[in-house]
């Protein structure tokens, strides 16, 4: 069967036969970079369209339906428009930081792509501290946002950036604790091992209630971390007009926009990997024939399906809930999510030590 694994293997073998190992590695890097950028562009287009369609359906509207069949080229047209627009830089802005900020945000999003297992044996970098790498790199995105808010020299931007700083720093904690529960259960930080540990069942099902709680906490925390409604205080449209990216236009704005959606994809991919078994097919106990059918579905489709399901849930949140206030946001984290996740981690540790999970 033609799987992603065999394609990569063929390419690598071919490269090694033609070139010396160093050059082959370099070429592989180039291919990976190109693929990553393509994936980014594609994801941006698809996710923005998806968001608009989901929003429209929830709001009893049709959504984009003019450009292309069912409006599928709408986001491509929008991108074209954004590329052609002039990227203004305000006079009194700190020009260097102002122009750097979108790229910082974008780079952080790109870095996070490295350890994600898209399919069976299809991973850019199977680093042995994968989870640690993710949680440390993802907290860097706040620097880009703060940079943008500060450099814009706009009060709304500044307020948005400050809110974002407080928010991301706080929610990093409970996201980290939620991730830790899986690390405790698996006993490894490596993504491939975490996935492998879920061969006979996803952690969400194997790990009893504590893992379900951790999953819910994770979803809430990453919604906050990606600045999505109901935690979109950094850009709170009705309060701060557009928050930290008020002054951005054209492609620089598009980069922020893209980074937001890439970040959603990444956190959902990580959520799918940790809690829903990554590319692992759905296996139920001893239903051998059922498990066998499930194995026929390619692993990349499993992975994407799970990720997009989580993305949909996050979008569902956005179009249902009102926004929290900034102090309530921090209250939620420090008075509810953090104590619960601490207690939950303790519980999971007990379960892991006693071996009570399936």
């Amino acid at each position, binding site marked *: 069967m033609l799987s992603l694994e065999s394609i990569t293997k063929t390419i690598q073998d071919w490269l090694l036969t033609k070139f010396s190992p160093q050059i082959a590695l370099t070429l592989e890097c180039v291919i990976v970079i190109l693929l990553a950028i393509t994936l980014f562009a594609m994801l941006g287009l698809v996710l923005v369209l998806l968001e608009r369609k989901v929003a429209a359906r929830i*709001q009893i*509207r049709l959504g984009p339906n003019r450009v292309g069949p069912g409006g599928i080229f709408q986001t491509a047209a929008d991108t074209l428009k954004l590329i052609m627009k002039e990227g203004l830089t305000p006079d009194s802005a700190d020009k260097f930081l102002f122009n750097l900020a979108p790229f910082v945000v974008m780079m952080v999003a790109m870095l996070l792509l490295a350890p994600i297992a898209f399919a069976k044996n299809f991973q850019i970098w199977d680093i042995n501290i994968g989870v640690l790498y993710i949680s440390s790199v993802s907290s860097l995105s706040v620097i880009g946002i703060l940079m943008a808010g500060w450099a814009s020299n706009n*009060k709304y931007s500044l307020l948005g950036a400050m809110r974002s700083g407080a928010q991301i720093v706080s929610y990093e904690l409970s996201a980290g604790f939620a991730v830790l529960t899986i690390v405790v259960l698996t006993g490894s930080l490596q993504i491939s091992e975490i996935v492998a540990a879920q061969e006979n069942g996803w952690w969400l099902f194997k790990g009893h209630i504590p893992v379900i709680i951790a999953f819910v906490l994770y979803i809430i925390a990453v919604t906050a971390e990606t600045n999505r409604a109901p935690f979109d205080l950094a850009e709170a449209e009705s309060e701060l007009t557009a928050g930290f990216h008020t002054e951005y236009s054209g492609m620089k704005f598009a980069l922020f926009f893209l980074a937001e959606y890439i970040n959603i994809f990444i956190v959902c991919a990580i959520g799918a990997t940790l809690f829903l078994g990554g590319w692992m097919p759905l296996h139920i106990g001893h239903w051998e024939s059922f498990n066998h059918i499930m194995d026929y579905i390619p692993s990349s489709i499993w992975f994407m399906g799970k990720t997009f399901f989580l993305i949909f849930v996050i979008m569902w949140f956005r179009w249902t809930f*009102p926004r929290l206030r*900034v102090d309530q946001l921090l209250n939620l984290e420090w008075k509810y999510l953090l104590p619960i996740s601490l207690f939950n981690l303790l519980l999971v540790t007990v379960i892991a030590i006693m071996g009570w999970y399936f």
Partner: protein
Amino acid sequence: MYTETEIIKDNTDLGPDGELVVNMGPQHPATHGVLHLVVTLNGETIKKIEPHLGYIHRSIEKMCESLTYRQFIYVTSRMDYLSSHINNTACALLVEKGMQIEVPERAKVVRTILNELTRIASHELWIGAMAMDLGAFTPFFYAFREREMITDIMEDTCGARLTMNYIVPGGLMYDIHPDFQTKVKAFVKQFKEKVTEYEDLVTGNVIFQSRTKGVGVLTAEDAISYGCTGPVARASGVRCDIRKIDPYDAYDRVEFDEVIETAGDSFARYMVRVKEMNQSIRIIEQLIDQIPEGDFVGKTKNVLKLAKGEFYQRVETARGELGVYIVSEGATTPHRIKFRSPGFSNLSVLDHIAKGSKIGDLMATMGTLDLVIPDIDR
């Protein structure tokens, strides 16, 4: 004439004590129109709010001085455009009072129904816009779906969707549409089914409650002193419904409750409006089958002239008490006309109740004050 804190010309300027001074509006997503608030902030906390008005001031009062008593009514539709029927009713009632014009029963009942439909439409729009201010986008569309039915009814009967100019001194401009009653009944039925959706999405939502409860508290004394009327004052426990105090049209023959809440916070104001919609439905249900046959407009002279003197008429719009004060010199045009608009007084209380709260609270407070800027500016 301005002090230096008011209009911050350079964006990097700070207030006198180093506070952040933010110009909120005239183009801002949450000010719904061209309200300009100069907000002095200490971090996220509001220290002072100064409204700057006049961006949509058309000087309706001056315009009316050169319009006849038939003509000036159409301008008032453009004041509080969400309750244009009620504005028109106020003017028509004043002219009728000044000239002792007998209004047929049919016209009175139809006016009452239309006024209540307008009130529901206004509150529907408000509920959507208010939820949007707080970051929930979806209720807006659900609210507009029901509001659309009302505007359809208005379009059928009055020929316009927003600025109707259907009510004239003496009654109505023309008779109601033959489908009017069935359409209103269909609306009442659908509204009753769908109103629970707001409960699920907005009222019961824990985030919405925590955003509005205890936010922007207005005491009864302050509400009276600041001249607040309508749902804003009723949420603070002040009885001020003109429909009860000084019944006009057919309000004296229908049963309805004046909705009173005592908390005085944003959530109370929200609840007052939601409950008021149900009371409006109650009024409509009582009247819709009781529209008497007969003329829709009373006998009026061709040229309307008010006697020399002063006339005051108040009605309850969706936002509060609208007063029309006319000084007549006996001519065909008013000598001086003053509209006491509810929004103006309700806005004046904003600084008082939003001081010390967060920016997010300002949106909740401003949203529940239900400001319509043309009504404030006139």
